[in-house]
């Protein structure tokens, strides 16, 4: 028993070292901008850069719209497949996996050809259209994560019986999804939303090729031209990620408990 515990701690220690040593090294390197002393100069430079603020804000807004679009598409789709079309599940799962197999660069080249200024749907003819196309592209990239998260959430509740219980009480489809299904898969949706946020914040290919002022291309630009600022940006990105995770943990406390206990 004691020996088992010892080895568990050893494994935990190795894992922690594996994740934290590079992070600590990056953090330490980000403090070396001023020669001979540790300082937060790199952070000051990055945070004071108006392009950082603009691109970060752009990506945050894009992420929010991507999450909304993803929820609007995935929740009703996953719900309907579970309720009425379970035979389609393998096909839909395959489709949602395609963004992992098809590189983003292929998707974005397809977009440029399909939605150029001469096409019937000229998304790329305006800034707003291009940004909308970027959000649509991001929703596609996030599909594997969002669909799986929501589908797993739906698996924990008795979708059919809850739907029928709501129906017999007079509820229509929109009420059922908004007031019965969505609240009960909220944690799953939040997990999907968090993953979507993480993907969008760091995404480079689509934003760059659609020429959008997003955080990903800014990161790449800084990384290619500066020494200490990229390390500071990496630490900031980690802080944002952890902030998101903490937020989800806090929100999950308010989520409904779905355990249906036997008597």
């Amino acid at each position, binding site marked *: 028993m004691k020996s088992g515990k010892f080895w568990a701690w050893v494994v935990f220690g190795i894992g922690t070292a594996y994740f934290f040593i590079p992070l600590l090294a990056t953090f330490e390197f980000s403090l070396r901008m001023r020669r001979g002393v540790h300082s937060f100069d790199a952070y000051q430079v990055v945070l004071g850069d108006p392009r950082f603020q603009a691109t970060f804000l752009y990506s945050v807004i894009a992420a929010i719209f991507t999450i909304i679009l993803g929820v609007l598409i995935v929740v009703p789709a996953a719900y309907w497949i579970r309720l009425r079309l379970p035979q389609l599940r393998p096909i839909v799962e395959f489709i949602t996996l395609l963004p992992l197999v098809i590189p983003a660069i292929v998707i974005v080249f397809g977009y440029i050809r399909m939605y150029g200024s001469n096409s019937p749907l000229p998304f790329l003819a305006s800034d707003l259209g291009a940004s909308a196309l970027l959000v649509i592209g991001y929703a596609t990239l996030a599909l594997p994560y969002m669909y799986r998260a929501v589908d797993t959430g739906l698996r924990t509740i008795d979708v059919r019986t809850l739907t029928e219980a709501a129906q*017999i009480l007079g*509820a229509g489809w929109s009420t059922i999804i908004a007031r019965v299904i969505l609240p009960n898969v909220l944690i799953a949706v939040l997990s999907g939303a968090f993953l979507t946020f993480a993907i969008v914040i760091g995404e480079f290919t689509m934003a760059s090729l659609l020429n959008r002022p997003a955080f990903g291309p800014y990161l790449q630009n800084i990384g290619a031209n500066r020494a200490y600022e990229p390390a500071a940006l990496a630490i900031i990105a980690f802080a944002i990620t952890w902030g998101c995770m903490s937020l989800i943990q806090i929100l999950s406390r308010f989520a409904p408990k779905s355990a*249906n206990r036997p008597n």
Partner: protein
Amino acid sequence: MAEPFLSIQHVRKSYGTNTVVQDFSLDVEPGEFVSFLGPSGCGKTTVLRMVAGFEEPSAGKIVVAGKDITRLKPNQRNVGMVFQAYALFPNLTVAQNIGFGLKVAGMAKAAIDARVAEMLDIIKLPQMADRYPYQLSGGQQQRIALARAIAPKPKLLLLDEPLSALDAKVRVSLREEIRSIQKKLGITTIFVTHDQEEALSISDRIAVMYGGKAEQVGTPFEIYNRPATKFVANFVGTLNVLEGKVTDAASGKVQVNTQEVSLKGKLNGSKSGDTLSLALRPEAISLARQPGHDTSLSGEIAEVHFLGSVIRVRVGIGGNTVSLDTFNNSTTPPPVVGDKADISFSSGDMLVLH
């Protein structure tokens, strides 16, 4: 004759080539409590789901209060339903669950609160309003589900095996409570169960179903004492079946093993030489001759099970075995296996199964 409140007319349901309900018809009077009783796969839940609107009949019509609801969606039927798996909304409190249907109907908050309080009083759980379903026991959850179903004052209440997931003690108390609430509100109710005791104890009438058809519809007394078919006789209650041979059709003589019984007027056209299945309920049989019993058969004690207040005895009569219960008497020891014994019964209690 008054018009029935619920009329299920020649309803059929098929999935491809598989017909699960065939030509099912039933009229239910206002305020009546009717149970659909049958084994798994007999079509009882499918009929209930067609009444609820979750399944569309392949043929036939369902009429409630004179209105054809066959093609109406479930949310347009004004029907309440309690499910086997409770189906309480996990994200809502007890009060919110009960008020769900009222809120959907657009009722004012004050009126919803008043109705929820009234429902909580009816189910005797007034202190549970702010709890979540996961904080309740199975019995409490099912009570809340019942309150939720009746809160919007539905025309019809459907109960889909609501007691199946509960333990034995809770089942008995809850079924009595369901019946008492149903009587108090006078709501027409359909109750689906595979448990004969449940159906017999709380129903006004029972429809015994088998193979997608109603084998017999009648009061619990009729179903138990005058089963119309062999299936009903076997399914409802315990039954002893004896094989007999008609020796004299005119005088109703039937030979069981080597002994003769008289079943005058019960042979329904059987001819001499025909073989028959004769059925007897255990409670109709006594060990030794009793007053009022006009028939007796001799046999041998085959098994004796001491169950406390009751002793279950099995008596072998030729190739047949008859089961009967006798009350335990502290001054009389139980019969001994291998002893000769006579059983007696009234020939009027013997059923000829078709």
